[in-house]
Every structure is written in structure tokens, then in C-alpha cells.
């Protein structure tokens, strides 16, 4: 009887020992080797490098389909947003301007299909078999929005009381619709200014939404806010959960601010924290919502 019970235990011991040996061999001694890995298995920082390289290559080729195919290999959930966010990170981390610019351009192109203006530059190229031939290459010309000092004008804020805490995404929609679709480089004009009174958000903010002519949000736009004795810069796209074209700045009550886009556009003057009145008569700070649209 005693020997029978020992029999079952030693078999179990043998099986456990075998499993342990098998796992040690398969996980440690000879693990599965991924020598033919796809790009989506890359480490996060290598994925960033990969995206930056796709953007740099896109600047040369202007081939949006190819760029999309390459980015699709990374299996990002929101490709355009991921590239835009990386552009923002690169900007914040002080990466080279060329990298930030390339990522921003690619993000915009992915977002709304905008393709940088290209010009053909012929070049003579030699193949590996030493046959000589010419190939046409394209070089993108990035047009920056021109500075428009003449457009400077004072904003005419319209008080809109919305004490029932509307959805931010709704309040940022412009009342009017831009119908023109000009070339890149057109200035951004102030489309609407209104005061948002929201009991859930009682800090006095300057909220900016920047859209292109197709009313698509535009990330990576630098804004400068100036007040007596100081100035600060901020960028659209840092809060992509709200909108890629959104940016905000916290005002100090009593200080008068001017705001403009660094690369051209309308200047909005005399922005200051404004109070709202709640249903019970108490006062709280509202936020200015400024919507700029590329004309």
C-alpha cells in the first residue's frame, strides 16, 4: 500500500520536473527569436524615430499614400493624432526644428489630405549597374503664413451667458462657415469671440481654437500672449483630447492681454478676465473662446 502511494507521487514529481525543464529551455536557453519582426513591435522610442523618419521621407516624396502605408505598420489607433502628438512632444523636448516641422506637416496632411506644394527638381542618378539615367524628384516648399500686421484690430467680444455648462466641443464650433479653400499660407482670421460661463470651469482662460479653411483643427500653431511686462507662448494640439486645434492660457484677473498667432494672423487686444453671474447671484470667472479660421 505504501509503495503504491509513492508511485503516484514520483510520477507527478517527474512531470513537474519535466515541465520546469521545458520552460527553462523554451524561455531561457532557446527562446523564440523574433528576427522578422514587424514595425508595430518596436519599442516606443524606436516607433517615434520611425514616425519621424516617415515624416522626413514624406517631405521629399510628397507621397501621402506611402506615408500612410508606412505609419499603418505601427498600428497606432489614431495615426494623425499620434503624429500630431509626437510633433508636440518633439517641440516641447527641443528636437530639431526640421523634425518638428516634418511631423507637423505630415500630421496636417494626414488630418485633412493637405499636400505641401511640390516642385520638380531633375537630377541625374546612377544605377548600381552604372547605367546613367535621369529621375524626377520632388522637393516640398513649405509656405509659412505671412505676417499680417495690417490685420491688427481690436476684438469685439460678445457676452454669451451659458451657465448650464455646455460641452466644450460644442462651444468651440464657429457660428459661421468658411467656404473658401485658399492655398496654404493664408492668414488665420478671428472668426468668433465669445465668453464661456461654465460653473465647472471657473478659471479665467483664453481658449483658442484654430481651424483651416475646411474647418479642420490645426495643431502645432504657436500663439503669443502679451501683457504689460511680459509675454508667453503656447501651442495648439497639446490637449488633443479636446481638439488638435485647441490651446488655452490662464489669465490673471485684472491684467489686460493681447493675443496673436506667431506666424501671422489677427491680433486680439484687450482680453481680460471677465466675470459671470450664476443663478444664485454669485460671481465666477468666465473664459474667452476665440476661434480663428484660415481664410
Amino acid at each position, binding site marked *: 500500500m505504501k509503495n503504491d502511494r509513492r508511485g503516484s507521487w*514520483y510520477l507527478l514529481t517527474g512531470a513537474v520536473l519535466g515541465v520546469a525543464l*521545458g520552460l527553462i529551455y*523554451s524561455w531561457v536557453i532557446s*527562446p523564440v527569436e523574433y528576427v522578422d519582426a514587424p514595425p508595430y513591435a518596436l*519599442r516606443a522610442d*524606436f516607433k517615434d*524615430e*520611425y514616425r519621424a523618419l516617415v515624416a522626413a521621407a514624406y517631405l*521629399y516624396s510628397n507621397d501621402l499614400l506611402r506615408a500612410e502605408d508606412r505609419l499603418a505598420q505601427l498600428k497606432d489607433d489614431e495615426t494623425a493624432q499620434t503624429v500630431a502628438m509626437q510633433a508636440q512632444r518633439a517641440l516641447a523636448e527641443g528636437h530639431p526644428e526640421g523634425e518638428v516641422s516634418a511631423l507637423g506637416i505630415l500630421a496636417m496632411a494626414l488630418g485633412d489630405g493637405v499636400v505641401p506644394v511640390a516642385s520638380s527638381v531633375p537630377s541625374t542618378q546612377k544605377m*548600381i549597374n552604372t547605367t546613367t539615367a535621369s529621375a524626377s524628384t520632388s522637393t516640398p516648399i513649405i509656405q509659412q503664413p505671412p505676417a499680417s500686421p495690417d490685420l491688427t484690430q481690436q476684438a469685439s467680444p460678445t457676452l454669451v451667458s451659458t451657465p448650464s455648462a455646455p460641452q466644450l466641443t460644442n462651444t468651440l464650433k464657429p457660428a459661421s462657415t468658411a467656404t473658401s479653400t485658399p492655398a496654404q499660407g493664408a492668414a488665420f482670421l478671428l472668426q468668433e469671440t465669445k465668453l464661456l460661463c461654465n460653473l465647472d470651469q471657473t478659471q479665467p482662460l483664453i481658449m483658442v481654437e484654430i481651424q483651416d479653411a475646411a474647418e479642420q483643427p490645426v495643431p502645432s500653431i504657436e500663439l503669443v500672449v502679451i501683457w504689460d511686462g511680459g509675454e508667453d507662448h503656447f501651442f495648439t494640439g497639446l490637449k488633443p483630447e479636446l481638439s488638435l486645434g485647441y490651446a488655452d492660457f490662464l489669465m490673471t484677473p485684472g491684467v489686460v492681454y493681447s493675443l496673436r498667432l506667431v506666424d501671422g494672423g489677427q491680433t486680439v487686444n484687450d482680453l481680460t478676465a471677465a466675470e459671470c453671474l450664476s443663478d444664485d447671484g454669485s460671481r465666477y470667472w468666465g473664459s474667452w473662446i476665440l476661434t480663428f479660421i484660415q481664410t
Partner: protein
Amino acid sequence: MSRWAKFLIAVLLGAAAGLFYGWVVNPVEYVDIAPESLREDYKTDYVLMVGEAYQAEHDLGLAVRRLAMLGSSVPSDIVANALSYALQHEYAYQDLSLLQLLGEALLTWNPNLEVPTP
């Protein structure tokens, strides 16, 4: 059958189960791989992107740093391998030209002239 034979059979069955689990059911996952582990076609496309970017940026040092992510081989060899793969798989003429131009540029590259990147 002796006890030792049964014991060894149990060990072998257990080892087979362990190997099956370790290699098939739950293999080691490389989720944070480096570009040098990419499949050959992806590597070639990576080199092609470096070639395209080089044509736009004209920064050979940057191209070399990007190629260095594909392993410790000499950059010109990495490009040569990519060009060889591209030729075998009949890449477009313009892509072959880009790889060729990058390879030629790398032949003139002197790492001693590189300005260190801060």
C-alpha cells in the same frame, strides 16, 4: 516497467508540455524590439526612408545615425544589403536610385568630420 522508466517518461511528457507552453502557447514576447530585428522588407523600406530623407535634408551624419539603428554593420553595407534586396524584388527605379545615391554618399562619409550632436 520499472519505476525509473515511468519517472523518465513523466519527465519527458512534462518537458514536452513545458516546451509546448513556452514556444507555442505563451512564447517569449518581444514587444520592445529594436529596428535591427525588423523583417528584411521592413529594413529595406527603412533604409529607403533614410534615402528619401537624405535627399530632403542633405545631412549625411543624420542619415548615418538613422542607419545605425539597424545594427552595428557599416552604414554603406546596410545600404548595399537594402539595395540588393530591392533589386531582387524589383523595386521602382526611383527607389533604387535613392538607395544608390545614399550608398554613394556614404562612401564619402568620414565619421571623424562629424560634429557631435548635443
